[in-house]
C-alpha cells in the first residue's frame, strides 16, 4: 500500500509528540511564561537539524525516492498576512494549548474534549477561505 509510509511517519510523529509532552497544554503555558527550556529545546533542535538537512539537500541537489529533485517553494513575500495571521494563530494556540498537529494527537490520547477545538479549527479555516479576499495579505 502506497500510503502506508505516511501513516507510519504520522505514528512516529504522534508518539514522539506525546512522549515529549509537546501535546500538553501545561507545556505550552510553560513556554509562553518562559519558565522552562523544554519546548524551546524541542523546536530549537528540530530547527537546527532542519536547517542542516535543507542546506545539504540543496547543496548536493539530492533527489527523492522516485529520482525527482527535492524542491523547496519559497514563501510568498509579505508582512501583514504572516504577522496578523500568526498573531491570531498564537491567541488560539495559548488558549487550547495545541497547534493543529497536537490537536489530532490528543484525539488519539483520548482527550475527547479536544474535538471541540478541532471543530473550531475546521470552522476557522472555512471562514478564512470564505472571507480571504477582503483581508489584507
Amino acid at each position, binding site marked *: 500500500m502506497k500510503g502506508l509510509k505516511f501513516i507510519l511517519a504520522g505514528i512516529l*510523529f504522534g*508518539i514522539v509528540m506525546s512522549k515529549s*509532552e509537546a501535546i500538553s497544554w501545561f507545556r505550552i503555558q510553560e513556554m509562553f511564561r518562559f519558565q522552562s527550556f523544554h519546548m524551546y529545546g524541542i523546536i530549537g533542535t528540530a530547527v537546527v537539524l532542519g536547517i542542516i538537512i535543507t542546506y545539504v539537500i540543496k547543496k548536493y541537489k539530492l533527489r527523492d525516492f522516485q529520482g*525527482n529533485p527535492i524542491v523547496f517553494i519559497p514563501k510568498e513575500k509579505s508582512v501583514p498576512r504572516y*504577522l496578523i495571521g*500568526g498573531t491570531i494563530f498564537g491567541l488560539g494556540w495559548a488558549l487550547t494549548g495545541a497547534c493543529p498537529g497536537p490537536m*489530532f494527537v490528543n484525539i*488519539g490520547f483520548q482527550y475527547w474534549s479536544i474535538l471541540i477545538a478541532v471543530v473550531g479549527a475546521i470552522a476557522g479555516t472555512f471562514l478564512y477561505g470564505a472571507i480571504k479576499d477582503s483581508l489584507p495579505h
Partner: protein
Amino acid sequence: MIEFLSQPWPWYTSGIVIALVMLILLFFGKSFGFSSNLRTICAACGAGKTVKFFDFDWRAQTWNLLFLVGAILGGFIASEFLSNGEAVQISQATIQDLSALGISAPEGIQPEEIFSLESAFSLKGFLILLLGGFAVGFGARYAGGCTSGHAISGISNLQLPSLIAVVGFFIGGLFTTWVLMPLIF
C-alpha cells in the same frame, strides 16, 4: 524496554524525530505542514461548491490525511502502551502561576479545568476550546502555515515570512497568556 519508553522523553529526542519526520516527508516528495489538512478536510466535505478557496483537487493531499491518521494512532499507542500515567513535570513557577488562575497542578497531560468532559461542556470551557480552536484554524490559514509549516519547515529553509509568522505566534500567545487568561480564569 517498555518501562524505559514509558518515561517522558527528553526534549532533544523530540527535536531529532521532528526533523527526521520532515526529512522522511521530503524524501517521499512531500513537505511537512500539518494545518493544510484542515483546508483539505473542508474541501473533502464539499466546501469547494460554495467557496473557491476549497475548490481544488483535495485527493492529491490524501497522503497528508494519512499522516494525520497516523498522528492520531501515534497518540493512541503512546497513551495505551507507552504511558505510565504520570503528571507532566512542569516547572514549579508555572504551577504557582496557574494555581493563581485557579488551575490545579498537573495530574496527567492536560488540565482538568479545561479538558475534563465536565469542564468542556460548561459554557466557559466549551467556548475556550471552540474559540481557541477557531483562532488556530483561521490564523494558520491566514498565515499560510502553522508550527510545522512555518516554525519547522519554513525556518529550516531560512524563509523570512516564516520568521515573521513565528513572531506573530508569540505575540498572540503572550497576549493570551498574560492579558486574556487572567480575565478568562
